[in-house]
């Protein structure tokens, strides 16, 4: 008799492994895309959110983790330490996708804002302890400002995250929503998360 597959095995198998790898690569390549069209956003979690929606939360978490691992080993070691943040993003995206957040743009947008706040909460302690509040992410001048007005390192890192992450994640959620509306049904039918779209 066939063994009952665990939730993990159902989301991470031969079918979904290449999708997770694609999502991780997409996170990395999005940085190049926004530079090409000169947008003042990161959009470095689009792959995580997309795979969390198309497969599930576990796959989303792995997508983010492996994107940061790949980035860390080949481009900038700082990314490795932010893997816990990507786990939060993947888990939350998969969870809200199952609740139907990506079926309408006006449900995706507020979920993106909440995601951004959660991301800021998760990244603040890492930025504070590992890098003294500095991450070379473009908003370090905000850390400087908050430190100058007397905030602690962790408070400054959190406030810097709150200023940037909700906007970035809301934009990411909207982009993923519009992307999902353009993928053909014959492709979506082959994916485990078909019911989320």
């Amino acid at each position: 008799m066939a063994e009952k597959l665990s939730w993990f095995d159902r989301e991470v198998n031969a079918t979904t492994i290449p999708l997770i790898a694609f999502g991780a690569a997409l996170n990395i390549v999005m940085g190049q895309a926004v530079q090409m069209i000169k947008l003042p956003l990161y959009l470095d979690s689009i792959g995580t959110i997309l795979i969390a929606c198309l497969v599930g939360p576990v796959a989303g978490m792995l997508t983010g983790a492996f994107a940061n691992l790949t980035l860390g080993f080949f481009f900038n070691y700082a990314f490795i330490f932010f893997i816990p943040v990507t786990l939060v993003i993947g888990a939350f995206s998969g969870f809200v996708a199952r609740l139907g957040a990506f079926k309408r743009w006006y449900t995706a947008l507020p979920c993106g804002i909440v995601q951004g706040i959660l991301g800021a909460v998760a990244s603040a302690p890492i930025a504070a302890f590992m890098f003294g509040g500095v991450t070379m992410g473009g908003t370090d001048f905000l850390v400087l400002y908050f430190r100058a007005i007397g905030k602690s390192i962790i408070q400054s890192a959190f406030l810097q995250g709150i200023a940037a992450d909700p906007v970035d994640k809301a934009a990411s959620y909207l982009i993923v929503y519009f992307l999902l509306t353009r993928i053909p049904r014959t492709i979506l039918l082959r994916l485990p998360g078909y019911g989320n779209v």
Partner: protein
Amino acid sequence: MPLALSAINLEVNERECIMLNGLSGSGKSTLCLAAADFLKAFPAAVSSGKIIRHRTEQEGGTGIAMVMQNFYSQITYLRPTVFEEIAFPCENLGLPRDEIIERTDDAIARIRIGHLAGRNPLDLSGGEKQKVVLATAIAMSPDLLILDEPLSQLDPESTSHLGEILSGLKRSMSLIIAENDPYLTLKVADRVVVLSDGKILADGKLENILGPDVECEIDLPAWTRCIMELQNGDRTRDHAGTAIRYELNYKRAIETMRKI
């Protein structure tokens, strides 16, 4: 949703080579996936019918091996050398290390890609990648080998060589090949299955399908017109353009092509 394959009932016998002919969109690739038991991955490809495989499982064999039409997706990128890339499925079978190396060496020798063994699979051309994927399938020692358009990126010399390889492989495994190439059909096929719009229009030996006693209004693949050029004969063309009835001496044409 339209059926991708309709009422397909196909029997694959031991050590038999079946050539699938048909135009684009006729269902050749879908039938290959169905024969390899991968159709469950395509819920949109609704089909009816069944495929019966008569085969004796080889010890240490993998059952069924397939070279897909999009063979680029079969390069795994998980191994730094072509040799290890070809050995990858055998590793997953849990075979003894020496046997894996022996099978890989044998497959490389058969496909004649010894000069590629130490190279990175990422650096290969399209034709070289296709040969690597073919070698990978052969190394698995399957009972049934399914090839979906295996000649798409091969040069004429490699095509001729592949025909010899497949003739040799027929002695130990069944083959299903989706290809419209006349040379390969005449060289290796024991049976030809002609598909159109997801249905089987003809299934049998080549001479019987195209023999003078058969009258069927099917839109034959273009290559059959090449065969006709070899022989003089009467032709009755339907000016609607979609169905052509032939009354020709095909048997002689086929014998002539086989001698080439």
